[in-house]
């Protein structure tokens, strides 16, 4: 196999809060790895041949890489803002391409049909125009001014509101969503999707959040995000082909899919093709 550009990226491989000496046996891009707390209390990640891999602790997770990361892990400045509650949502395994999992996270048009009465509902299905760009300085995909009708803005809220979203893709299998924060107008709630690629068609997904919310019990916050992600899971396991097609002829995008179009273009440009299908079959 030729060396894939994705080898040198950082990936989540476990929750810091669940790190123990017993360890977690998992995998990264087909390689079995072991994540554990070492004798000195720090996290170690090792391949089955005992070779140690780079480790980084950030955003509630242990991160590692099979290759030689050229950059530090992407920054989420909001994560360090005082007053935010950091939510470890936990892992959910999905039999799908890690890239399909990210692309679905970037999509709003499915809200009325998959997250019915929570994130969207008929007849409020229209996706208004929004802005998408590949920011060359940061080398990230951004979608801004994304607005969508949300029937249940918060657990306590009666009736719907128009929620604004910003999406950011700083790494091939990670995305950060900034979402209207009802208790703090002017601030954004941060909801992330960190995807650990186990294989080209199998991934462990680690959602994580940094929210301004002093009211809702932690368990409710976890359950809300698990609900949303598991609603997506049965979609992700039933897309054909399983790999994300980067050939433009294979699937039909509309204006509502411009984030996905930019994401696919960005993946192709960088050769981030682990979990992608390059030629229509």
């Amino acid at each position, binding site marked *: 196999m030729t060396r894939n550009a994705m080898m040198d990226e950082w990936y989540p491989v476990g929750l810091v809060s669940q790190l123990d000496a017993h360890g977690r046996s998992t995998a990264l891009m087909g390689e079995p790895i072991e994540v554990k707390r070492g004798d000195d209390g720090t996290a170690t990640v090792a391949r089955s041949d005992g070779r140690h891999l780079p480790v980084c602790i950030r955003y509630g997770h242990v991160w590692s890489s099979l290759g030689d990361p050229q950059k530090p892990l992407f920054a989420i400045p909001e994560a360090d803002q005082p007053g935010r509650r950091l939510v470890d949502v936990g892992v959910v395994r999905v039999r799908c391409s890690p890239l399909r999992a990210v692309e679905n996270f970037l*999509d709003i*048009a*499915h809200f*009325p*049909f*998959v997250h019915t009465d929570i994130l969207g509902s*008929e*007849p409020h*299905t*229209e*996706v208004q125009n929004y802005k998408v760009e590949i920011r060359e300085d940061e080398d990230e995909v951004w979608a801004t001014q994304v607005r969508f009708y949300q029937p249940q803005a918060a657990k306590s809220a009666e009736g719907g509101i128009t929620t604004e979203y910003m999406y950011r893709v700083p790494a091939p299998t990670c995305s950060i969503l900034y979402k209207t924060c009802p208790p703090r107008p002017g601030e954004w709630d941060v909801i992330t999707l960190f995807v650990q690629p186990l294989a080209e068609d199998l991934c462990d997904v680690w959602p994580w959040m940094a929210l301004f919310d002093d009211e809702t019990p932690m368990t409710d916050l976890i359950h809300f995000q698990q609900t949303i992600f598991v609603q997506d899971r*049965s*979609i992700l396991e*039933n*897309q*054909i*082909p399983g790999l994300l*097609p980067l050939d433009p002829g*294979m*699937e*039909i*995008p*509309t*204006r*509502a899919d411009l984030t996905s179009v930019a994401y696919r273009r960005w993946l192709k440009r960088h050769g981030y093709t682990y979990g992608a299908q390059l030629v229509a079959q």
Partner: protein
Amino acid sequence: MPAQSPAGRVALWRGRSGRVSAFADRCPHRGMRLSHGFVRGETLSCIYHGWGYAQAGNCVRIPAHPALTPPETVRVATQHVEDGGGIIWISAGEPTGGPPRFEGLAPVRSMTVEAGIVALEEATGTSIAGGLLDYTNADTSVRLLLAPESPARTLMHVLIDEDSNPDERITASRAAEALRRAAEHIERGGTGR
């Protein structure tokens, strides 16, 4: 509902009028299986983004863009379907005639058997004749219409005399279960597993 045809997986669906259609089981938008979708009136919609398709396979609705008339190029492949005598037939190409009729027989159930047709023939001790396989278990006789889905998997439609009463139909269903067990036993032995 999902089904198999020689041309691949299909989504079989029935509109409110009762008309049956067979689509390739994949939405051209994002590749989601259309057999997970929903039917309103004469339209099958994808569960993922609600794109709706008419019986001819053309897209008639993209909910993200309600004012947009979907371009003609957005369509799913369709297959020819015939509803005959309680059995739905799919033709991969253009059929030259109607589907076979099995006069005097009524369908009881369809079931998937993890065995090939050879194992099913061996389990019944007979061979397919006139398109059907006969099977007799104790006093019960059923006729089986077989559609191979792969070399080791067969979709088996169980038919019985149309004058049978409910008790006889239940007995026929149980006989078909016995046949499935026998055929799968042969299949496992035959492949040395």
